[in-house]
């Protein structure tokens, strides 16, 4: 599984993953994850740091996990206050649709005992 844990791949996504940085367009749309082209066709997009507050649209608890992860853990679709929906791990137990969350900086993935540790945003129930 070279993709998830490769150093260049993690480094490229560092800014977006560490501080919830996406893009915004003069038409008013904003995007998280960031994009290079807006739905309106504009290619000149600015960086935007999202405030990290959002609401759970749907969620699941993963019991059968892929290689490198161990379940159970919650993953949710989260509608950010600025509009876009992102996928994120949610910490805390009392999860349900409509609950408010805020983003926190956490370890996402460890590639074995001595491998690269990938950090990024997770969400905490408020």
């Amino acid at each position, binding site marked *: *599984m070279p*993709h998830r844990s490769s150093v260049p791949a993690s480094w490229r*996504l560092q800014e977006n993953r560490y501080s919830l940085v996406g893009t915004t367009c003069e038409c008013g749309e904003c995007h998280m994850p960031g994009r290079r082209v807006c739905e309106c066709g504009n290619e000149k997009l600015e960086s935007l740091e999202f405030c990290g507050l959002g609401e759970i649209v749907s969620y699941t608890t993963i*019991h059968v996990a892929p290689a490198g992860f161990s379940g159970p853990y919650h993953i*949710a*679709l989260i509608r950010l206050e600025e509009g876009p929906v992102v996928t994120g791990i949610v910490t805390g137990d009392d999860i349900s*649709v409509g609950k408010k969350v805020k983003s926190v900086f956490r370890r996402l993935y460890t590639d074995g005992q001595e491998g690269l540790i990938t950090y990024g945003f997770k969400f905490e129930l408020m």
Partner: protein
Amino acid sequence: MRNVAVVGVGQTKFGEHWSMSLRDMLTEAGNAAIADAGIERSSIESLFVGSMSPGRYSGQEHIGPLAADALRLGNIPATRFEGACASGSLALRTAYIDIASGRHDTAIVLGGEKMTDVNGSEAITTLAAAGDQEWEASIGLTFAGLYALMARKHMHDYGTTLEQMAAVSVNNHKNGINNPNAQFRSPITVEQVLASSMVADPLRLLDCSPITDGSAAMILMSEERAKALDNPVWILGSGQGSDTLALHDRMSYTEMMATKAAAKEALAEAGISIGDVGALEVHDCFSINQIIALEDLGFCKKGEGGKFVEDGKIALNGEIPVNTTGGLKAGGHPVGATGVRQAIDIVKQLRGDSVNQINTEKGMTLNIGGSGATAVVNIFGKEME
């Protein structure tokens, strides 16, 4: 565009084939289709093979020529098509366009996946790559997890129940009993589904299609050549649609716009309405997806798919028989082979040699890739357009 017929079909049994490689399975299915058509292999002019990830499952890319070589088809053009779990239907659709356009007169379509040479967690990781690697798979979201997110939303918005989702698996297992090619041929109950182990809440093991080895194949021919053969079945229309790769970027989490686009194109080409379809194969990779598919294709209103299934409307003697030989759930889901296998089962219904024969003139397949980023709909009929 010319009329195109299906003149031969063949497949391996679906299941765990420790003694067969991807090459062995593609060859067995291809040989069976050639024999069923009763043609010489030298008359085949092009090859189309669907496979999601032979590189990760078998360490082998470039399987177009691999299949042509194994089947002794000489120097004909041979190409692999990839659209995650919709790869097989993509290969079939492209072969259809190849023949319809007049470029070639006889083509072989193959689909195949060899999934059990890697361990279970590696298989799950590979399947998850059908989603967005950077923003879904990388944080530990599995393929089952994506559909679980849709299931939870469907339950929240429309009151769909766990029992209704379980009824999908019960229906498909019942239909698989008579199918000698099915991976599972045992009936299950709603209670058994609800008691099976949790995979991605609310989806349990018996809501999920299995990991499977298998291959399926079919011979397509131009009208001109097919008229000399017995019992051709005609391709009436084909459609393909796409949507955002990541689920979170969609307008809706309970509706697949790619399905709607594909169905619209296929129905328009066939010149029929959805009510004319009498046999349906849909993509039940997870139970919720069969419910969403029935709604998106227009067999019932959005939100009413669960009740539609629970009321028996999809049974063999129901309003619209669905997955009449077991679907992906009981039949098995060797990813790249599935779309071709769906088409084979519709063709058999139309030829009158299905293991669960129903009476119909037209049938449809819906094959979905990823969490709905690719959808392919193909329509077949007993008679030409």
